[in-house]
């Protein structure tokens, strides 16, 4: 309120101030809608980790190393962007990691049957969307919990990946603009990740579908009684994460130059879930942000990379990851309590 009151009350025709008031809305700072306390704290931890590894390891601050970090975080952030939406719906997709594995092989199947590379890629991604729709239909129409539905789907897809690849890697297509755009050129994977995060965060916080997603997870019965088609909301979000997971799998395969049937899997999926949770999404539904998940993925990427550089084993990384998830979850719970206490009753509009 203060800003609006002072700018109006002073009676000065202060143009820039007037405009900023317009953009912000009365009394609500611009950043408050975008970054809340949760995201701010994870951002601080991420910066602290970055500073720590800059000091302790020589090669950390180099373009190549930044690229390495980007390579870690991109697939996690892309899958997490979908997983956050689903977690907000109070659902989870355990099969995303195997959609990640399978997608490049669907691409190869289309490509080897004469489809141009770009169409093969689009076809593969659409097939992944279809897998998500199937997950969603089983979840909503047969009323099977998503944990079970997608666990079954995970093993099914893993099996299919191994069958159509005969268990061995295939080299990825080369020499095409498609390769450059989708994972081949230096920062392509990261740029796609940032674009997807930006789009999903906008959908979540600025569109009706975002409100429906929060309402579906926050009060399923209530949302349905308000006329929100909750099954459709869930199916769409299942489709979205599968689409992203497949797309991320293709990006990574093209970047590495080979499609590997042992790539991805539960590991990739759970890293995405960890990124979401560290970024402030609860598993109870109703709340969470995609930007938070990106920060979570960035933190995981920095720590993973930092440990590699300083020569700490992967086993120790898992210890840190475990602690990070537990601390993040605890903070989530207590930050919410704190936030409620801080926001004392005041009239703002």
């Amino acid at each position: 309120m203060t800003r609006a009151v002072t700018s109006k009350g002073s009676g000065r025709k202060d143009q820039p101030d007037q405009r900023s008031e317009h953009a912000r809305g009365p009394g609500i700072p611009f950043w408050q809608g975008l970054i809340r306390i949760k995201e701010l704290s994870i951002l601080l931890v991420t910066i602290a980790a970055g500073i720590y590894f800059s000091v302790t390891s020589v090669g950390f601050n180099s373009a190549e190393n930044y690229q390495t970090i980007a390579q870690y975080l991109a697939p996690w952030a892309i899958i997490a962007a979908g997983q956050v939406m689903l977690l907000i719906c109070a659902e989870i997709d355990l099969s995303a990691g195997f959609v990640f594995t399978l997608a490049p092989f669907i691409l190869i199947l289309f490509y080897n049957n004469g489809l141009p590379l770009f169409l093969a890629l689009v076809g593969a991604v659409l097939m992944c969307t279809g897998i998500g729709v199937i997950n969603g239909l089983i979840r909503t129409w047969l009323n099977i919990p998503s944990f079970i539905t997608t666990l079954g789907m995970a093993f099914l897809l893993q099996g299919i990946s191994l069958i159509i690849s005969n268990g061995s890697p295939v080299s990825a297509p080369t020499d095409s603009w498609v390769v450059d755009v989708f994972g081949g050129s230096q920062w392509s994977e990261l740029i796609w990740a940032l674009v997807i995060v930006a789009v999903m965060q906008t959908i979540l916080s600025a569109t009706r579908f975002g409100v429906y997603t929060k309402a579906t997870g926050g009060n399923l019965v209530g949302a349905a009684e308000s006329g929100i088609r909750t099954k459709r909301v869930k199916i769409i979000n299942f489709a979205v994460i599968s689409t992203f997971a497949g797309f991320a799998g293709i990006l990574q395969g093209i970047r590495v130059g080979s499609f590997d049937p042992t790539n991805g899997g539960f590991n990739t999926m759970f890293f995405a879930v960890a990124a979401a949770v560290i970024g402030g999404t609860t598993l109870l539904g109703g709340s969470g942000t995609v930007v938070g998940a990106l920060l979570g993925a960035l933190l995981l990427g920095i720590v993973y990379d930092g440990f590699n550089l300083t020569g700490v084993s992967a086993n120790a990384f898992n210890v840190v990851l475990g602690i990070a998830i537990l601390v993040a979850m605890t903070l989530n719970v207590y930050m919410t309590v704190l936030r409620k206490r801080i926001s004392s009753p005041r009239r703002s509009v």
Partner: protein
Amino acid sequence: MTEQNGIQDVVRAEHVSKSFGPVNALEDINLSVRKGEVLGLIGDNGAGKSTLIKILTGFHQPDEGRLLFEGEPIELRSVTHARSLGIETVFQDLAMVNDLPVYLNLHLNAELVHKPLPFLRRREMKRRAREALDSIGIDIPSVTAEVGQLSGGQRQAIAVARSVYAEAKLLLLDEPLAAMGAKEGGLILRLLSELKERGDIAIILIAHNYSQVVDVCDRVNLLQHGKITFDKRSKDTSVAELLELVHAEYRLSDVP
């Protein structure tokens, strides 16, 4: 006839029946409510009150019988369809999303968006929410507060305000006073009397507290085992009579 003394029935149910598998939830229900009238619907748990409300609100469709809305026969296909006609419901669980702020709850599934880009018009929704709450005298500290932070009475008041704001012609209230303290219940009752005075809205109120029903409602219907067994104006009945009717049922069924 739907016309009586020149005042039309907003909604009328004729011979409505509904069963779920072998259970007959509603049998041959006839019910009507007029503009500016508050109809009290009482009955024991499982008598079919909520089923009836869900039929009137488009959540369930009747197996037999028909509904008339403003004199015209109508088939309510969905809650959204009913809402588009001006049938608003405050459900027992309030259909409130705790994680969303007050203004988004007030606009749930009726959000204002820009065109052509479908982004939410947050400022406008906040302004209208504040206006709607002020107009019916509900004191909420901030429309940007998450609903989960508010008290039961405040949440209930917002749920009622949401329906009024949506320009309801028929407002259905499913036990708005259950699980509420005397002070908070008073807030809702005051709100109802205010709406009654405005006279442009028909209200069906489900409640367990018979003295409140007799106080606020113009007419009372008693639902027993899926049938309406009693229909009187409030001033022609009393709390004692209502209690007697409901308890008589138990005395009979207690006979070995």
